[in-house]
């Protein structure tokens, strides 16, 4: 991966309230891994789940981005973005 050199090469967002810095252009799925354990949601039987297909098919990485249910693998991080996984509090 290209290592960002200047401040504008980085994007700052939050994952479950923690500040996370990622290379500009990174997906929300990448931010989950940069900011912690990479988990996206809790399954119906209570198992932790993380991105599986990486291409918008499996829905395993669904979570809330600025309050909207989205797929982490198909969203590019933006400055100030609030990412809420379904790990801290189970989501439907």
């Amino acid at each position: 991966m290209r290592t960002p050199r200047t401040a504008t090469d980085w994007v700052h967002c939050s994952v479950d309230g923690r500040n996370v810095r990622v290379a500009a252009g990174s997906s929300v799925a990448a931010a989950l891994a940069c900011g912690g354990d990479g988990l996206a949601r809790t399954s119906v039987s209570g198992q932790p789940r993380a991105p599986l297909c990486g291409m918008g098919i499996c829905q395993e990485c669904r979570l809330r981005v600025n309050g909207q249910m989205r797929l982490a693998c198909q969203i590019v991080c933006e400055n100030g973005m609030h990412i809420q996984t379904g790990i801290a509090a189970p989501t439907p």
Partner: protein
Amino acid sequence: MTRDPIQRVAQTTRPGHKRALLIIGAGPAGLSAARAAAQAGWQITVVDDNPAPGGQIWRSGPGAAPQPASRSLQTALAALPHVRLLCGTRVVAAQGAGALLLENAEQAWVQAYDVLILCTGARELMLPFPGWTLPGVTGAGALQALIKSGLPVRGQRIVLAGSGPLLLAAAASAHRAGAHVLRVAEQASAAQIARFTAGLWRWPGKAVQALGLLSMQYRSATHATAALGAQQVEAVHLRQGARDYTLACDRLAVGFGLVPNAELGRLLGCATTQDADGKAVVAVDARQATSLAGVFAAGECTGAGGVERAMAEGRIAGLAATGQAVPQPALAGRARWAAFGNHVAEHFVLAPALRGLARPDTIFCRCEDVVFADVAACRGWTEAKLATRCGMGACQGRVCGAAAQHLWGWQTPSPRPPLIPARVGTLSLMADENPSLTIPPSIDPPCP
């Protein structure tokens, strides 16, 4: 505008009206179709659910620079005022004949078309095995896509397992990103791989590519039997011939081949056919036309065959869809790369052992957490859905339905709308008898 097809034709052929071509998918097939169609002067809209064009193979991001072929197509299209690219946009449903209900992050709208080209690509076949739901287990193409999109893997120990050239490509991506690739486990036998390699002389570029991807960690006749770990994958059990061994790892990427994304075609009513493995693919004729008038299809949704075949099919579809002549060399190119696709499929046939990996308590449907034994006890897909909720979750059976097809030959019925989980506001448009057929002015090409 009305949804009556006769009146629509009358309106769309009136003097001065530009005919509308809608292309679903901005990968190699979709971009090639748009480029070829552009010469006809139609109004062209290309829709893709990813944040940027390129599809999977041309995905770029912090972990991957844009590919030259992709960049050149995108540059050419960006210069054309009558071609519009809408990324981050998904197809939710068909809205009568000649229109699709679309949704992006902000809004939903009905997009009308005179002619449609489906370039919806393929996904990876995921087969259930013990531990496959552990975080850190991904698809093989998935790992490549995630790395390209900025997933940090530097210093991580990665095992890849499954079948086909994609394993080596994904391993190369992981290696370039600083990961330690411990093993590339190919289930095909050494003899199968030798025959595959010996036949590559017909596609010299592919032979060169294969040499460049060679890995010291590559093992034939090897497959993963289980992923181990508490909260995250920590190790993988591998079986090489008769020998079992365990490798500690941080990630396991599994790829069992590709499943054509035929759902939209099936929803529209396009006839499908089965590929060599029995997977449903959108059926097309020599001009890439489907059984449905005015609907064409190109690329992996008509059968997995690689990027060159997808580009060749996309070009032919773009020309034929807009009434342009298809030159003979284009047809010859398609035949050449279709033969390569068949060559791959023939030599990486999945071993029967891969059908027997799941244990009774292995999760089969990841959306509804239905275990293997409960699904295996059913006589078919419909019974499994009704009795266990298998395939009724958010992915709508795209993962477990393909696995059920591979394991038991179960065919899933045509999908029903909505094709994907959509917002309530979007779904309300489905019931609208007279929805607006224009793109809201706020939607301008949002692609980078």
